[in-house]
């Protein structure tokens, strides 16, 4: 994992037992995780153990820790990666274990947090249709063409999984085109899965 100098410096401060003992370290790390997951977090360091620290240094450490956590989750880092990069920064094994435990505990939530940074189109969950057959209209005596009324039920993440409908009508060729495109999409998805 590539880390910038300021992050490295902050983490090295965290690794220093003269600055933070193990208990304060655990509390601090927990606070860092929770500060990422809950908002607003006005008082991240509202613990008696952290009160008499140098607050500006503590804030620096906080930036470093949160950045490290986010980078780790972003790269889907496994145990060996996390541990080796922490050990490179001179963390002792107790701290590494404590950190990794919290990381493991919060990883799914953090993944959710990061995966929510995206725009995602609504999912089609259901479809209903009706076939109309037009025999004639007011302009033409003999039309004799089918038309389809399609209604997609969609589900989007934006309004908490509520489903909405998407209606349109199309001719036979358009429907064939749509079906063909969908088949293509499914096939290319399968192809991508087989890589």
């Amino acid at each position, binding site marked *: 994992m590539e880390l910038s100098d300021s992050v490295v410096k902050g983490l090295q401060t965290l690794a220093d037992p003269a600055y933070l003992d193990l208990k304060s370290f655990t509390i601090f790390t927990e606070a860092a995780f929770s500060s990422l997951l809950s908002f607003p977090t006005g008082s991240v360091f509202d613990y008696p153990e952290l009160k008499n620290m140098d607050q*500006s240094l503590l804030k620096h450490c906080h930036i470093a820790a949160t950045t490290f956590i986010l980078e780790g989750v972003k790269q889907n880092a496994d145990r060996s990666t996390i541990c080796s990069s922490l050990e490179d920064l001179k963390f002792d094994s107790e701290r590494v274990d404590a950190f990794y435990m919290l990381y493991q505990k919060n990883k799914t939530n953090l993944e959710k947090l990061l995966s929510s940074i995206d725009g995602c189109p609504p999912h089609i969950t259901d479809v209903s249709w009706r076939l109309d057959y037009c025999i004639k209209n007011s302009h033409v005596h003999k039309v004799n063409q089918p038309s389809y009324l399609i209604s997609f039920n969609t589900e989007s993440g934006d309004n908490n999984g509520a489903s909405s409908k998407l209606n349109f009508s199309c001719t036979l060729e358009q429907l064939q085109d749509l079906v063909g495109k969908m088949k293509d999409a499914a096939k290319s998805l399968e192809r991508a*899965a087989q890589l």
Partner: protein
Amino acid sequence: MEEVDRILIHSLRQAGTDIDEDVQRVKQFSSELIVQAVVRCLRVIDPGVGSGLSPTLPPGMSARFRVGMSLAQACQDLGYKGEIGYQTFLYSNEPEIRSLLMFLVEKLPRESAEVSDQPAGKSALLQKAIAAQIKAQLALPWLPPFCRLPLHRKTQSPGPCHNFRAQPLSLPYSLKGPAKKQSKEVKEYWREYLLPVTSQPSQATSVPASLLENHVSELSAAQDWENEWNSQGLLSRLTPEDYRSRKRMRLQKRIEEQLRAAAQPRPDTHNATRSTSDLSELLNSFAGATAGGDVLTKGTRFTHSEKFTFTQEPEKAAQQMAAAASALPSSHQSEEDLKAQQEAELSAIQQQLQQLSVQMEEVGGDIRQLTVSIHQVSDELKQREVRNSEKESNIRVKKQTIDLLPDAENNLIKLQSLVEASSKRVVHLASQWEKHRTPLIDEHRRLKELCSNREMESSRKLSEIKDLHDKIRQSAEEAKKKESLYKQLITEYETLPKDVSRSAYTMRILEIVGNIKKQKEEITKILSDTKDLQKEINGLTGKLDRTFAVTDELVFKDAKKDESVRKSYKYLAALHENCTQLIQTIEDTGSIMREIRDLEEQIETENGKKTVSNLEKILEDYKAIRQENSALAAKIREG
């Protein structure tokens, strides 16, 4: 052969043929199985060819014949050299099938050999991960929202989404320099009032985005610096801090020059002086904020004029205040009057102001002129003083000469001796100087040389350092690459099926090799035995020949003299001939025995070809074809 068959069957199974568990030998392959195996192999080797062939035998006899022909054609196209035709598949015999299958299995693409030793790039790894993820998601069935377990919730109900919006963060450390340099106020702000980064953005959703963005920008800045340092900074032989400060100063100077060039005072406009003073102020503050840019603090014309206007300002203000106080209107007057009066006052004041500013300018011009004249005058003064002192010294010399005039002779001699002494002294001093100079010059030269040597050495070392840097970077990259390769291989290894076949194969191969070695040893033993025998035989025949020749000669000599001996000679010749015949017969028997063995072997192989059953099959098939033909003919007739 059993080993070969097992390996063949294993490979065929891997190619996609379903072979029953009880089929252990190629001998047990039925026609259907052979066709299936061949078609599967062809499909793996060349999908274009294989997809046109069906792996099952059709029921109709003529269709079967056609399938056999096309399969034989495909195999020949692949480069099979042996004898092959429809009969190979329909009326199989073991050796032919075995050689065909061996050929096909050898042709199977070996992925394991082609799996690259170089690490797959990051993108390949990512694509693999994506493929695995897609596969996992495809395997999960879709469920309506009320049935979803937490497992599905992650992929099937995505939750609210938002865009990547980063906001600038205020950081409690300075990227430019050590924290000690920061002022006390900034430090206090950091300590007391700065919010933690996670509460700085206005929305919860931009917290991770801002943090990631911040980190990436720091990383890229560090990388830029690294690149620049390696390409230019290292050559400048400065410490990083010096290099940085020098660069900053250069930049500052350039900006200053640009600004100053853009803000040349234009005397024709009234506002110009004002804007330039603003600008000079800006320049001043710019220089003051950054330590080191003390070019401007010496005091330029702008700062002078600025000072001047600032000192003037309070006086002017005081005057204006006094005027305003004296002209304070009494409250009895009506409002309109008041307004008119105020306007009049305003215009008057403005006029006054303009007058004053014009005056100011004039005065400023006067002052400038006066300062110029002061300069001139002081220059003149200095010149005059210099001239004065010259004249004074002249006068002193002349005074002394006048004092010396009365006793001219004596004084002349004294003076001459003095001159001589001083010239001598000069010569002496010069020689002394020479004495001192040469070692000094030598020293100087030596030092110079040393200096240049050092310089060369330092440049050499610099290049070495550069090389080392490059090497370090390269090795770091290599190590990273190797590590990722190792990781990748480990994961690959873990995902591989734990097949014992490999070790079994090697075991078997080793066994076979051992067997072959033993056989070879035996063969060589037998060969040497035969050679020994041959030698013995040759020796014996030679001995026989020689003995016979000697006996023959002896007996022949005696035979001339004695009649009985002649008889014995005849017997001897007959004996010899009979013995030769006997040997000949024995040799013939041996060759016949060998021939018999060969023939027996041939018979066995012919038996192995299942000729009888194949012939029967061919007869049946022939009948079937005739039946089909007659049925077709009947149909034609009916039609």
